[in-house]
């Protein structure tokens, strides 16, 4: 059996978790086994049944009011309990802030090999070899897991999410949680509302020093709003506090792989490219024809950002109007 950890936001499964279920189901088919999802906290039976349409046959549900606040200890304990209950040989999670705290704990507990940040399916013809990003996106490595149990955390946005047919059965699971698993006290939570989280965004509009100052960001924000995109920035911009550091992408910031990355006024230093070169399509807008980013781009526009970006926003608006 393959066990997959699924995350939800206020009772609705996140798209990247549906992607993880599909990923697990692909591996399960190849190994001739099935998929059991592990869900925690306040989520409805009907929502859990929908995981069947992504390839899960069963959902193990652990309800415990204490799980509403994230605890890596408790979450790992639940995943390990599920893996043991299902005699799972493969355990799948996501390479996001939750998965990066939980999956290594699960792997360490089970003395299992972990591939963190997988971007491909395991190659079973070569043991259990999984492709992952290394050197911050400058290369890929093939990692063979040699332990009996295998743990994989999938890089979000690696595979398309397509809904199929089917319904999963839901079963309650007692994980033997104790107060010691919840000894971290959460004092305050602030979540950005409405906007798309950068790590999950399919479209990203990003700005660099070429925009000259934070007061000019409105042109990017208008384009992002029109596209339904998230906003990002380069390191000098975050360092100068023009934008929050959570928006910084690059070698020492976040690594993203959206379908479309529009880079405005970013020269394209190797450290920046490292964080974004997994993007499927890259558009570069820059007034410097020598900007190295053009070499890594699919489409380039030469000129001043403050003139071009509003024109692009208008063109997108026109296109969207034509679509309706």
């Amino acid at each position: 059996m393959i066990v997959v950890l699924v995350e939800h936001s206020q009772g609705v499964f996140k798209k990247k978790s549906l992607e993880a279920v599909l990923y697990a189901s692909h591996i399960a088919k190849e190994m001739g086994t099935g998929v059991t999802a592990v869900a925690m906290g306040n989520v409805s039976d009907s929502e859990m049944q929908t995981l069947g349409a992504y390839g899960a046959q069963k959902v193990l549900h652990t309800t415990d009011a204490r799980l509403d606040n994230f605890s890596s200890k408790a979450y790992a304990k639940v995943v390990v309990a599920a893996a043991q209950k299902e005699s799972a040989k493969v355990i799948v999670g996501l390479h996001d802030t939750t998965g990066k705290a939980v999956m290594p704990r699960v792997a360490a507990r089970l003395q299992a090999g972990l591939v963190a940040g997988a971007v491909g399916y395991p190659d079973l013809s070569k043991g259990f070899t999984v492709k992952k990003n290394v050197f911050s996106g400058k290369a890929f490595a093939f990692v063979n897991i040699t332990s009996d149990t295998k743990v994989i955390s999938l890089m979000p946005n690696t595979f398309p999410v397509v809904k199929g047919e089917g319904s999963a059965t839901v079963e309650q699971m007692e994980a033997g949680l104790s107060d010691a698993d919840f000894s971290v006290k959460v004092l305050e939570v602030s979540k950005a509302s409405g906007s798309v989280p950068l790590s999950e965004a399919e479209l990203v509009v990003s700005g660099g020093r070429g925009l000259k100052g934070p007061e000019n960001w409105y042109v990017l924000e208008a384009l992002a709003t029109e596209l339904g995109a998230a906003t990002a920035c380069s390191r000098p911009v975050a360092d100068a506090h023009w934008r929050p550091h959570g928006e910084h992408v690059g070698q020492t910031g976040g690594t993203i792989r959206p379908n479309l990355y529009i880079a405005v006024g970013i020269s394209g230093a190797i450290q920046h490219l490292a964080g974004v070169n997994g993007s499927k399509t890259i558009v570069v807008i820059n007034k410097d024809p020598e900007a190295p980013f053009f070499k890594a781009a699919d489409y380039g526009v030469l000129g001043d950002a403050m003139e071009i970006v509003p024109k692009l926003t208008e063109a997108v608006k026109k296109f969207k109007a034509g679509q309706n």
Partner: protein
Amino acid sequence: MKILVCISQVPDTTAKIAFSDNNTTFNTQGVTFIINPYDEWYALVRALELKESGAATAVHLVTVGKADAEPVIRKALALGGDEAIRIDADSNDPYSIAANIADYAKAHNYDMVLCGKESIDYNNGSVGAMVAELLDMNFLGFAAKIDVAGTTVTVKREIDGGEETDACELPLVISCQKGVAEARIPNMRGIMAARTKPLTVVAGAAITSVTSITGYEMPPAKSGVKMISADNMDELVKLLHTEAKVI
């Protein structure tokens, strides 16, 4: 409070990444190695600040590697820290690295283990949480602010789609990122002092690696940029829709 800071040595951020032996070995020729930026700028500097403020009594640095990792750990000692430990093992398997660190930490009673959010070479970001599990400690990942009052640690950290502030009693493991501290530059006094600070080499524990890297691959090269006139944004939108199929 005794702090253990995990230090990893990584290729310089500008290093050219290339592979040899039929793409099975990272080619280190001409590559300069540095302290992993997250370990240095954030974990190490915050540990030093905690010692300077009196909250910490000792700051020890640990790295898992062969003798070639020593110049980098000396560089870390030049920034500060009382002593360093090199666990003599050669592995890029996160579990082996974590098990070695946990083994050492268990025997030496640290109250706090700090590491960077990930190393910029293998990008696993796994060692911190693994060490926490092996020591049965709490783990707080992606810290942007760490404060200590008595035995209570308050951590502001990144979570999925936002931020959270947590309070946790010692002992615990924290992975650090931007915001935790400001990078420092070692001064001459620090560099001189680092030469005589104790660097203890301990034998690696008998741990079987559970992963191995079998090969590498470079990302496919882009086929070349298509330039669009600044006056023709309709054309760009059309191409993004019909050719790239991303909108």
